[in-house]
């Protein structure tokens, strides 16, 4: 059976190509001057520069977190290019004006844009390295009063909203990487759903890291006003490089009374080769604030890429009756390391949260679930259910579970369960005896294993994610 496992495990990275585009990069390194330059290049207002500088000054006083269960070489923060944007920057009216090389890249990735976007019914705000190149469907969304644009545009056109909400869920003091991001973020997405509006389509952003050694520091901010609803998709692929690239994004979600935000991610960044050379360091801070009553934030993530992942999409359940959800599939292979999970802070009354986490480890990888469920003294009637299952493929990988449960309210009910298993010989035999070969059997078993999570993904993503898992594990079991 091991040959087939090996084959799946050894599947090369299919999105690995590098696009030659002239880019406008700054010198390596980080200083107040670099931050001022980024800010002036983007014509930012003074208060934003002030925000960046405060974050930078705070960052200088902080040290990198040591507690995650991951090992990686020390990052030299002075050896990173903090700003790089494709040079051809004039505003584009149609797709014809877009650099054809760029279009080819998207084509290879199969990103629906322009007409394809219309067919797929997806509005795509494409972030290519750091600057948004084109934004589609803006007009259509504008009819509903929905703002969906790049972060820089939002700073220019809607400064009041940005000023009000930026850093309100993830303050720059939060952690080492959120401080770094606050200081140097170059672009990202901003989304504002007005009161009572149900977003007519799924909003989607594709991220790509392109210039070698350019750290990407995205900033995403989604505000859902009273009674609104939005479903947001985020997908990542990156070309193959040998030097490690740092990605430290910050995502902030704010849900007012009765608002509903669903945030889905498929992450498939370059994970390094089978010896652990290269690959992306993915240190992301994602947090949602259920500010209003009956609000709901749901995170769904499929993590299959990156050499090192360090990511805990969280929910602060502040409003009474608010709901937080976290559905995750994390797959690690070769030398990949993932320390991922969620945090659910129950503050309001009758708040509920649900955590379903599925970890799959193969090769020599290490996969950890780290979660926190915290019930504060005032969160009467809080309810949590957590389930973390791990599957091990091969005996050289590791699966860990670190669930922290902290309860300070007697009316709270918190449940946690975890299990670890492998694909049993008996299960495989059952399939074989019915004429299904072992590779397909394994794929079916794994699909069954992750079903609880995939059913929460939007349709297009679910198809993509199923394919991705198949690709990643092709030949790994036999």
């Amino acid at each position, binding site marked *: 059976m091991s040959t087939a496992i090996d084959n799946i495990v050894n599947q090369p990275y299919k999105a690995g190509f590098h696009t030659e585009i002239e880019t406008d990069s700054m010198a390596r390194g980080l200083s107040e001057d670099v931050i001022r330059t980024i800010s002036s290049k983007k014509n930012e207002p003074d208060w934003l520069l002030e925000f960046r500088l405060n974050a930078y000054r705070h960052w200088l006083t902080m040290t990198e977190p040591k*507690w995650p269960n991951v090992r990686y070489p020390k990052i030299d923060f002075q050896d990173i290019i903090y700003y790089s944007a494709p040079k051809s920057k004039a505003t584009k009216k149609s797709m014809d004006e877009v650099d054809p090389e760029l279009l080819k890249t998207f084509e290879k990735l199969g990103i629906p844009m322009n007409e394809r976007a219309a067919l797929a019914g997806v509005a795509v705000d494409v972030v290519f390295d750091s600057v948004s190149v084109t934004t589609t469907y803006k007009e259509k969304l504008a009819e509903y009063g929905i703002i969906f644009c790049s972060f820089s545009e939002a700073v220019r056109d809607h400064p009041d909203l940005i000023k009000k909400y930026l850093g309100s869920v993830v303050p720059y003091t939060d952690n080492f990487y959120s401080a770094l991001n606050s200081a140097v973020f170059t672009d990202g997405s901003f989304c504002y759903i007005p009161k009572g509006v149900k977003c007519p389509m799924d909003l989607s952003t594709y991220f790509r890291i392109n210039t070698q050694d350019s750290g990407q520091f995205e900033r995403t901010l989604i505000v859902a006003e009273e009674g609104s609803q939005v479903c947001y998709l985020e997908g990542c692929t990156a070309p193959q490089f040998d030097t490690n690239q740092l990605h430290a994004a910050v995502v902030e979600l704010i849900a007012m009374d009765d608002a509903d935000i669903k945030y889905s991610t498929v992450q498939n960044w370059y994970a390094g080769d089978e010896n652990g050379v290269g690959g992306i360091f993915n240190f992301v801070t994602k947090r949602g604030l259920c500010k209003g009553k009956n609000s709901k934030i749901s995170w769904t993530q499929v993590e299959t890429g990156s050499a090192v992942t360090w990511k805990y999409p969280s929910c602060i359940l502040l409003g009474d009756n608010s709901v937080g959800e976290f559905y995750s599939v994390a797959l690690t292979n070769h030398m990949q390391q993932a320390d991922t999970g969620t945090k659910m802070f129950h503050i309001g009354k009758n708040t509920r949260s649900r955590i379903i986490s599925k970890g799959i480890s193969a090769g020599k990888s290490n996969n950890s679930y780290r979660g926190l469920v915290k019930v504060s003294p005032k969160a009467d009637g809080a309810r949590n259910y957590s389930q973390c299952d791990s599957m*091990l493929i091969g005996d*050289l*990988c590791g699966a860990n579970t670190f669930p922290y449960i*902290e*309860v300070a309210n*007697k009316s*709270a009910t*918190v449940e946690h369960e*975890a299990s670890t298993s492998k694909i049993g010989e008996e299960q495989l035999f059952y399939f074989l005896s019915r004429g299904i070969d072992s590779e397909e059997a394994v794929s079916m078993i794994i699909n069954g294993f992750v079903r609880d999570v995939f059913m929460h993904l939007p349709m297009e993503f679910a198809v993509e994610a199923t394919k991705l898992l198949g690709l990643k594990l092709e030949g790994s079991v036999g």
Partner: protein
Amino acid sequence: MSQQSVEFTASLLKADGANVEHSTEDWLKSCQLDARTHFEKCPLPTTSEEEWRFTDLTGLYKSTLTPSALDTPIDPSVVKSFLIPEASSSVVLVNGVYSPSLSTVSSAQTKIRVCNLKSALNDAQLKVSVKRRLNSLEGDGVSGFCEMNTALFKDVVVIHADSNGNSFETIHILNISTGKHTFNHPRLLLIAEEQARVCVLEDYIGIGGFGYMTNAVSELSLAAESQVIHVKLQRDDDSAYHIAHTHVGIDKGASYQNWSVSVGAVVSRHNLVTRQREDGGHIAIKGLALGHDKRIVDMHSCIEHTKPHGQSIQVHKTIAGDRSKIVFNGKVKVHKGAQQTNSSQQNRNLLLSARASVDTKPELEIFADDVKCAHGATVGQVSEDELFYLKSRGLDDDLARNLLNYAFAKEVIEDLPIKSLGAVIESYIRDQTKI
């Protein structure tokens, strides 16, 4: 590490002064000196360390402790009231030192030796075993408190069990603390040889003591196919600090059953580490902690499956009332190559009061693929339906709740092999879980 912990460490070392009258043995002397040097360098843990995050020892570090008086008179009749009828031998330690007058060690049984360190070292054969097994702590769960115990212990209770057929002999080790703001470092070494069977009750009480610190270390070594039942009952004075480390080494096919019950002290911490030394082995751990008043009860267990075919089952139940805080950290580690491990863990917590809190973290670390591991943790309150059922049969609210709490805790001690002790623990449950 805080200044307070550093100062406290220094003051303890200073207060202890001259040490170890029995250190005629060079190896022992150097082992105690090494621990002392090590302990001087790494002071006691504080809440800034992940492993001690929830156990605030500031109260302890702020206090000034002195060594316990070695010759405190105790009324034998008071001691007698704590002894259990099942025990064939009762070892009484007063402030960490063996008291021959209060102890009754059965001499009829030659298969099981119970003695203090001095007599153990006088026996050439026993000395070899003691030298081999004493201070063999390693890996997870070792903290500055272990080093402190090694550096400062005044005596060691040595239990050596040879194969003795099918009977379980019960040995009661009663640790009495009598001092006011004193410290003592009880130490236990249990060596079970092949196919030996023994049941040990490790019992901690305070008689007249106040604000004292008990810093206990127990080492248990189980040879192949031996069976050890180990009950640890912590019923120290409500003002006391109780820190305990239990390290268990398990050889092929041995069985270790542990009951760990915590019903006393203001802050208590128990680090329980079991480690497979060979293939196979069976571990069963049952824990009960009652949070009462402003008490902090902390249990950190670590089950290390280092070899194949190990089995472990753990149930830990707690009840947090008043303003108490309950902490549980249950780690199960399956090392590389420990295939066919079967492990399950269950942690259930009951919150009785609005100001009580529970912090729990069941951890799984798995590095082998052919294993079955599961854990579950719950935090909740008494079910309204159950309450209604009892009330509809005429019980008032308080009584109904007390009965349900009692039933919740009872499960842990139901199959306790020392029957008389079951009744003692039950009375603690009834007293401490009243609404």
